[in-house]
C-alpha cells in the first residue's frame, strides 16, 4: 500500500503537516512535528531511490487521471536522488535547528517558522517529484514564497531587505518560467514533460519554441543564482536565520540545477541543444561565475557572505558540466550537486554554531575562536578541504570528473579555469581559517564555549559524509551514470 503511493506521500505528508504545525502552541512542539515529518520523508525518499536505482521508473497518476491529461508524478533515478538530497538535508537540519532557532527566532513565532519550513521543504520535494511542468511552477512558487518568509525572520533588519530583494528577483524568474511554459503549451498542447519530449522534436525549428526555451532558461537561471543573475543570493544567505541558510544553501540551488537539467534534456532534448548556442552560453557563464565569485569571496568581511559567494562559484562548476555536453560532464554536475549539498551544509552549520555563541560571523568578531571551539573549527577545516577538492574528500570526486570531462574534449582553457577556481578556493578558505585560528582573540568578558552537542552531531555527520563519499563513490557516481543514460546523453 505504502509502496504504491510512495511518490505522492512524500509530497502530501509535509503539505498536510504544515498547517497543523502552524496551529500548535509555541515552544518545542512545532519543532517536534517538523522533525517527525522530515525523518519520515527521509525514509520514504530512500525507499523511493532504492526502487528506481536500477534505472526503472515509477509513474503515479494523480486522482486516477491518465497522463498526459492528468498530472503525473514520474520518478526516475534523477528525481529520486534530488528528493533524497532535500529530505536528507531537511532531516539533518532539524535536530540542529532546535537550539539555533531558539536563539535567533522569538519563541512566539516558532509555529509559523516551522510551518513555513515544512512548506519550503514540501515545495522542493514537489519540484523533484512532479512530471508536469506547470505543476513544477506551482511547487517552485510554494518553496519560494515560504523561503522569502523564512529569510525575513533573520535577526538583523537587513534580513527584511534581503527577503524583499529575493522576492522581486525570484518572482521575475518564476514569471519568465511561466511565460516559457505558456508558449510551449501553445505550440504542443501538453504540459506533461514526457509528452513534451515526444512532441517537441518535430517543431524544433519554430521560433516560438526557441523563444520559450530562452524565457525558461533565464527564469531558471535566476532561481539558480547563475552569474550574472546571482545578486539576491549573498544577502539572502547572510541575513537568514542560520538553520535556514544551511537548508537553503544545501537544497534550493540544487533543486534549481535539477529543474535546469529536466528542462534542457527532458522537455527539450540534447538534439535541440546541439542546434542552439546553449552549451556556449553555459560554458562562458560558468567560467565567468567561477572566477568572479571566487575572487569576490576573498574580499568578504563576513564569513557567511564569503561562503555565499563560494556557492555562486560552485554553481558555475555545475553549469560548466552541463555546458560540456558529454556524459562525463553531466556525471560531474550530478555528483557535484550531491557533494556540494554535503560540504555547504557542514560549513554553514559550523558558522551557525559561531552565531549561536557570539551572535556574529563578521571576520573581526570571530577572530581566534577556532581555539575555543575546536570541534566547530575542525568541521570548517575538513569541509573546507572538501570545498577546495583535496583528494580523499567528496569535493575531489566531482572536480576530478569535471576536469576529466574537459580534458576529454581537449578544452584546456576550461581545465585551467577549474584548477584556478580551486586555487582561489584555497585563498578564501585560508582567509577564514587564518582568522579563526591564528589571529588574536577579540577581547571578551568571558571565554566562548564549544557549541552545544545537538548542533555538533548533525554538523559532524555531514563532515563524515564528506569523507565517506570521497572514498566510496559507488552510490553517487553509480546513480549519476544511470541518470546520464536516462537523460539521453551518450559518451563520446
Amino acid at each position, binding site marked *: 500500500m505504502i509502496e504504491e503511493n510512495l511518490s505522492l506521500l512524500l509530497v502530501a505528508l509535509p503539505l498536510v503537516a504544515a498547517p497543523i504545525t502552524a496551529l500548535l502552541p509555541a515552544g518545542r512542539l512545532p519543532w517536534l512535528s517538523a522533525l517527525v515529518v522530515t525523518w519520515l520523508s527521509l525514509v520514504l525518499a530512500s525507499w523511493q531511490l532504492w526502487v528506481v536505482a536500477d534505472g526503472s521508473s515509477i509513474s503515479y497518476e494523480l486522482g486516477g487521471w491518465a497522463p498526459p491529461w492528468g498530472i503525473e508524478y514520474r520518478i526516475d533515478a534523477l528525481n529520486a536522488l534530488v528528493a533524497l538530497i532535500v529530505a536528507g538535508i531537511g532531516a539533518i537540519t532539524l535536530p540542529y535547528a532546535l537550539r539555533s532557532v531558539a536563539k535567533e527566532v522569538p519563541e512566539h513565532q516558532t509555529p509559523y517558522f516551522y510551518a513555513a519550513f515544512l512548506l519550503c521543504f514540501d515545495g522542493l520535494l514537489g519540484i523533484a517529484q512532479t512530471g508536469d511542468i506547470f505543476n513544477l511552477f*506551482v511547487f517552485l512558487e510554494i518553496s519560494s514564497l515560504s523561503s522569502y518568509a523564512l529569510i*525575513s525572520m533573520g535577526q538583523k533588519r537587513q534580513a527584511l*531587505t534581503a*527577503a*524583499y530583494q529575493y*522576492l522581486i528577483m525570484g518572482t521575475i524568474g518564476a514569471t519568465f518560467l511561466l511565460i516559457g511554459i505558456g508558449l510551449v503549451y501553445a505550440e504542443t498542447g501538453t504540459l506533461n514533460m514526457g509528452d513534451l519530449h515526444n512532441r517537441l522534436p518535430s517543431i524544433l525549428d519554430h521560433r516560438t519554441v526557441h523563444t520559450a526555451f530562452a524565457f525558461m532558461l533565464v527564469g531558471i537561471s535566476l532561481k539558480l543564482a547563475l552569474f550574472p543573475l546571482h545578486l539576491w543570493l549573498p544577502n539572502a544567505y547572510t541575513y537568514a536565520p542560520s538553520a535556514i541558510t544551511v537548508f537553503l544553501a544545501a537544497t534550493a540551488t540544487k533543486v534549481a540545477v535539477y529543474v535546469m537539467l529536466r528542462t534542457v534534456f527532458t522537455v527539450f532534448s540534447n538534439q535541440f541543444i546541439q542546434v542552439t548556442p546553449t552549451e556556449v552560453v553555459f560554458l562562458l557563464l560558468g567560467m565567468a561565475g567561477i572566477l568572479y565569485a571566487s575572487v569576490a569571496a576573498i574580499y568578504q568581511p563576513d564569513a557567511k557572505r564569503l561562503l555565499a559567494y563560494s556557492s555562486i562559484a560552485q554553481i558555475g562548476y555545475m553549469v560548466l558540466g552541463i555546458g560540456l555536453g558529454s556524459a562525463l560532464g553531466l556525471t560531474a554536475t550530478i555528483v557535484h550537486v550531491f557533494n556540494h549539498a554535503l560540504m555547504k551544509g557542514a560549513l554553514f552549520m559550523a558558522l551557525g554554531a559561531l552565531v549561536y555563541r557570539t551572535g556574529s560571523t563578521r571576520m573581526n568578531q570571530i577572530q581566534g575562536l577556532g581555539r575555543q571551539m575546536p570541534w566547530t573549527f575542525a568541521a570548517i577545516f575538513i569541509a573546507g578541504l572538501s570545498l577546495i577538492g583535496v583528494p580523499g574528500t567528496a569535493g575531489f570526486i566531482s572536480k576530478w570528473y569535471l576536469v576529466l570531462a574537459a580534458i576529454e574534449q581537449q578544452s584546456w582553457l576550461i581545465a585551467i579555469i577549474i584548477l584556478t577556481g580551486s586555487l582561489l578556493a584555497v585563498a578564501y578558505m585560508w582567509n577564514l581559517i587564518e582568522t579563526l585560528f591564528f589571529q588574536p582573540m577579540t577581547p571578551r568578558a568571558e571565554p566562548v564555549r564549544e557549541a552545544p552537542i545537538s548542533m555538533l552531531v548533525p554538523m559532524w555527520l555531514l563532515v563524515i559524509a564528506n569523507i565517506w563519499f570521497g572514498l566510496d563513490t559507488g552510490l553517487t557516481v553509480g546513480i549519476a551514470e544511470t541518470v546520464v543514460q536516462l537523460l539521453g546523453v551518450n559518451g563520446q
Partner: protein
Amino acid sequence: MIDFIVGHYNYWIVILLMMIGFYTVISRGNLIKKIAGLNIFQTSVFLLYISIGNVREATTPIIADGFTEYSNPLPHVLILTAIVVGVSTTALGLALVVRIREAYGSIEEDDIHYKDEDASL
C-alpha cells in the same frame, strides 16, 4: 500587414503591459511601486495564457446542442492558479514593505541603502 497587427492586438497589449511592468520594477526606487510593477508584469502573463486558449469561431467551453467547437478551458484553469500565486506574492511583498518601514522608517531604496551603510560604519 495591417491584418497581422490588428489580428494579434491582444498580444501587442501583452507585450506593452509586460514592458511597462518590467520597467517599473527595475527603474523605481519606491518599494510599493516596485510591487505594483511586478503585478502589472504578472498580469500581462495572465492575458497571454487566456489569449492562447481562444479558438476562432468557437464558443465558451460549455456543452450544448448545436455546438461542436469549444475554446480551450485549460489555460484559464492554469491561470487561476497563477493568479493565486500572484496574490500571495503581492501580499507577502506588501507585508515585507510594512516591516521594512517599521525597521527603517522609509520605503525608498536609496534611503534604506544609505541607512545600512551608516550602521555598518
